[in-house]
């Protein structure tokens, strides 16, 4: 106890509000367990073990491209936890996810259990085959071989995708859990990850978020004591990782993962809590991988642990344990056990034959992938984004075809009005972000009035961009809700970069091209507000490097409404750029029609001109127009407001027509050069239209560094009308140049 120095103070121990317990089975548990449950548990363990042994065998033959992260030794955690789940419950996992994926798939395909004395059903054989094909990178796989070992996904089975970013899948699972809860079901999500992943921000942020929002999410830690070669005790002061749960208000269980029944029972308790709507849970299963991080060699071969330690863990093998009880209770004979293991191995060998063939003229036993199993290389870029068929039949108008009444209105009112309209008509639309539920519509009034109208769908988040962005990504992949994320400042995208770019931006393509991720991200540019270096970026340039994202940049209230509606219709992730200068501005907007979409991929020619094509967007549009008027007596500039900025949606027709006319191009944007948008565009223009150019594509951008706080330095750091004038003059076009 603390004593000297502060002897006057009274110190009393505090208790966390959430319980932290260790669950161990007793003989009575094993005796009471349903014979069918134990037989199924055994059957799943054996199938997964045989599968993993076969994968390692192929890896040894050089037939697996990339790492094969073996789960051999730690199957008990996955099987024990997946058995009490129903199909609609969802799971995701990590790079070491074969066992998690298969356990969920097997339980889905055989809800009544698996008889280990019988051959598996054709459905199970097919699932094993497709999983193996995916791991080998073959067309027959769940994602046509795009995802491979670390990205196993079969939504139908509730397996929503394993992840190669340590901790990366955790926020996504929270999105699934959110959808379960808000769709009024009692389903749960389980996210599996390792001891190493327990230290990364996305995991810890999600602990907090899921607990705060009482999401039915089980954090399932497979504590196998190592992250590659680093021991858990080296990287955390509390290596009983379940200790973390109560700190976040999450009831937590520690359990011996080598005992599948113990895991099963802990999971049952966690499920009871979650299905009752009480919130998140955490289970730490102590497990052990017999092999190294990947490949067919034991960890001891790499010197970070001993053979003795490995032998001790192997002596506690989960299959042996379940088999022992089955024999002891007379449910299965020793022979039946052996036969089941042999049958399972034979099944894998037979499945392997489907995918493999002897190497022609090769050494004896040498095998290769059957050539017909590979995906077509032409498939390489298919399905990065959707085909926009969701716009079929959708009402699309532009300003010139809009027949409704228009009025002069404040930009920010259009922002709130269109979102209000969508939320009113579409109960799946959910907005989340920091402080959006207070301050009369968040920091800028963008959600004004919406919290009162839709209290459950305007979600003020904890300050954890990575977690809530990932949560939105998970909601979008789930599909029952349409998340709209608001970033208070665009610079915060770096904090959420994993979820934005590794997860949301890549998911559709990575999982085979068919699973959409319809997230809308609203992000404001705040250049000029004095918020300095870390609050003043224009994110368009960075987002345009990510092939999965579409980007819209409305510069008028009318366009905002149409582009937001298009973004909310689109099945792809869409970044909707906003700008503080625009919020305060006024312009033409609809009086009462907030239901139209602007056409996808259509720019707007804001000013016709003959001398130079200026390509611009967002708030810079009005600055460029101002500049064009200033130089109008000698330079006739054509100003194009791009509106759709990403590579897939940009309006080449309009750009090309203008360049053919003017032969001179200026790309004008406000922000810093390094993260600037125009680089890729200039590159593409010079390659497409080289013969039409009268000079290199020119650019107006901000400075090198991000804008500073000091007003004069800030002004010197970004571009507005003055810089646009200088840029136009420098081109030497027009009549007196």
């Amino acid at each position: 106890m603390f004593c000297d120095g502060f002897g006057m103070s009274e110190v009393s121990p505090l208790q966390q509000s959430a319980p932290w317990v260790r669950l161990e089975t007793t003989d009575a548990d094993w005796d009471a367990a349903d014979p069918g449950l134990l037989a199924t548990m055994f059957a799943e363990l054996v199938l997964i073990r045989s599968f993993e042994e076969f994968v390692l065998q192929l890896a040894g033959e050089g037939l697996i491209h990339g790492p094969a992260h073996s789960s051999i030794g730690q199957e008990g955690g996955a099987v024990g936890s997946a058995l009490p789940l129903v199909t609609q419950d969802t799971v995701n996992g990590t790079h070491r996810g074969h066992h998690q994926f298969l356990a969920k798939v097997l339980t889905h395909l055989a809800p009544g259990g698996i008889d280990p004395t019988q051959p598996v059903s054709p459905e199970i054989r097919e699932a094993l085959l497709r999983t193996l094909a995916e791991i080998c990178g073959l067309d027959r796989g769940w994602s046509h071989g795009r995802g491979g070992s670390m990205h196993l996904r079969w939504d139908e089975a509730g397996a929503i995708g394993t992840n190669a970013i340590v901790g990366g899948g955790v926020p996504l699972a929270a999105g699934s859990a959110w959808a379960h809860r808000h769709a009024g079901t009692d389903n749960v999500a389980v996210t599996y990850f390792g001891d190493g992943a327990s230290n990364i921000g996305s995991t810890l942020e999600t602990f907090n978020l899921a607990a705060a929002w009482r999401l039915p999410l089980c954090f399932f830690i497979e504590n196998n004591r190592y992250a590659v070669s680093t021991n858990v005790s080296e990287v955390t002061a509390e290596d009983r990782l379940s200790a973390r749960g109560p700190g976040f208000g999450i009831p937590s269980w520690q359990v011996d993962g080598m005992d599948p029944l113990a895991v099963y029972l802990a999971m049952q308790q966690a499920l009871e809590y979650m299905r009752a709507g009480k919130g998140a849970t955490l289970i730490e299963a102590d497990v052990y991988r017999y092999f190294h991080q990947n490949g067919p060699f034991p960890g001891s071969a790499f010197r970070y642990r001993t053979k003795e330690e490995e032998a001790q863990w192997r002596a506690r093998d989960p299959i042996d344990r379940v088999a022992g009880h089955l024999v002891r209770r007379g449910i299965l004979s020793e022979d039946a056990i052996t036969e089941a293991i042999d049958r399972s191995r034979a099944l894998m060998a037979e499945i392997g034959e489907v995918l493999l063939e002897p190497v022609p003229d090769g050494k004896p036993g040498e095998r290769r992938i059957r050539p017909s199993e590979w995906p077509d290389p032409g498939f390489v870029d298919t399905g990065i984004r959707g085909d926009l068929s969701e716009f079929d039949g959708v009402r699309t108008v532009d300003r010139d075809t809009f027949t409704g009444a228009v009025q002069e209105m404040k930009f920010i009112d259009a922002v709130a009005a269109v979102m209000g309209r969508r939320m009113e008509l579409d109960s799946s639309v959910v907005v989340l972000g920091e402080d959006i539920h207070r301050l009369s519509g968040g920091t800028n009034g963008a959600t004004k009035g919406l919290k009162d109208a839709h209290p459950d769908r305007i979600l003020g988040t904890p300050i954890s961009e990575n977690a809530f962005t990932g949560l939105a990504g998970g909601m979008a992949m789930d599909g029952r809700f349409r998340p709209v994320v608001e970033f208070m400042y665009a610079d915060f995208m770096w904090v959420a970069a994993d979820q934005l770019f590794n997860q949301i931006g890549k998911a559709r393509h990575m999982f085979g091209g068919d699973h959409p991720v319809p997230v809308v991200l609203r992000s404001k540019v705040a250049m000029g507000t004095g918020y300095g270096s870390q609050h003043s970026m224009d994110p368009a340039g960075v987002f345009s490097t990510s092939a999965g994202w579409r980007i819209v940049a409305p510069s008028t209230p009318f366009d905002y409404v149409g582009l937001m509606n298009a973004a909310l219709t689109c099945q792809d992730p869409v970044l909707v750029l906003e700008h503080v200068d625009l919020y305060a501005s006024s312009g033409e907007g609809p009086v009462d029609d907030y239901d139209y979409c602007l056409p996808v991929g259509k720019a707007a020619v804001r000013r016709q001109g003959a001398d130079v094509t200026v390509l611009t967007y967002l708030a810079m549009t009005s600055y460029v127009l101002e500049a064009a008027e200033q130089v109008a007596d000698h330079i006739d500039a054509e100003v194009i407001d791009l509106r759709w900025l990403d590579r897939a949606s940009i309006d080449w027709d309009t750009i090309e027509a203008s360049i053919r006319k003017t032969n001179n191009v200026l790309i004008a944007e406000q922000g810093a050069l390094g993260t600037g948008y125009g680089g890729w565009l200039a590159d593409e223009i010079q390659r497409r239209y080289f013969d039409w150019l009268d000079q290199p594509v020119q650019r107006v951008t901000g400075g090198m560094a991000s804008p500073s706080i000091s007003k004069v330095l800030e002004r010197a750091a970004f571009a507005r009308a003055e810089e646009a004038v200088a840029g136009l003059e420098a081109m030497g076009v027009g009549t007196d140049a």
Partner: protein
Amino acid sequence: MPELLRMPEVAAGATSALLSSWSVPVDAEYASGSVIAVIETDKAVVDMEAEAPGRILRTLVAEGTEVAVGDPIAVTAAPGEQVDDLDAAVAALGAASTAAPAAPASEPDVSPSPAAPAGSGTPAPPTAAAGSGRIFISPIARKRANEAGIDVTAIVGTGPNGRIRRRDVEAAIAAGGTRPAASPSAPAATATPSATEPGFVDIPHTRLRRAIATRLTESVTTAPHFYVKGSARVDRLMELRAEINAGEDVKVSVNDLLVKAMARAHSLVPAMNVIWTEDHVRQFSGVDIAIAVATDTGLVTPVLRGVEALSVTQIARASRDLAERARSGQLRQHELEGGTTSISNLGMYGTEEFTAIINPPHSSILAVGAARPEPVVVGDSIVPATVLRVILSVDHRPVDGAIAAQWMREFTVLLESPGRILA
């Protein structure tokens, strides 16, 4: 030591040529004299031969690139020579800058100025090496100039670094100064219709088409032409030809006999065997005659050399060879150069007579029509005869009318007494 292979000056005065293809792969050894690249000039496809055995370490220009004469096109080394750091070797040879685009000037220190918008990072433009002869011209300006047949060397560029811009070309077109007089219309002055508009198709210019346009435009604008007509009875010539061909496996054409007759006439009137140059009238001793050959892609004029010393069968064999290689695009550049006169024969089309434009730097060209039966007055009677009509176009700068008339007399007499052609 690795060495730079440079674009040779395949045609006199050529400033650039097209690297059409590489004939040996990188790192493959070649022998001295083997073809390592194919180079295309205005009129010919030239095989570039290795001067010494070696191998290409790296090509510096891609196939299909127009390269200024003298610019490096590849780095080569002796067979078996070990080059450890090729990049360093290339840099040491000073070739990097031609292989890669000029690097931008150092990171701009942002100080707003009207000419350089804050932070736009405008790189300093590369400057042309003085006297390098390179013309800086924007892509659209080059395109417009080509369409209008404008000679860009005569235009002063007003863009940065003297770059010729669209406006400069348009000004030149408007001024009409460098526009060829023979140009039937001014295509670039009106909007160029796009290829997708109905009613016509735009056939892009081939290099040959452009070359023809440029050279013949130059001819009519710089060489004052005058024309001398002549006709001859060629019944005896035809008989002679039949006689010659009876015994030979190489068939001699009427044209071959005409070429030989031209050479004889040139020898008899040496004042016709000349060309015009800036400072002199250059008179030749031997007679080199270009033969116009129509090919699928356009007119080509390979040159037969020393015709005065050739027999008609030699002429026949040589001109057959030239014509065939002209049609398959296999002529060497030197075979297209030289000569003082040309012959253009449209007789096979039945053309009665026509005038031709002189091929620079020649001083004349003979346009030959069809040999046709005509009534001819002999003494007091009209007799049927085979008559050939020719028109000689002559450059008045080196040659006066009387000389041309003298030549025409010699030539027609030769045709009517064909034995003298062979003498």
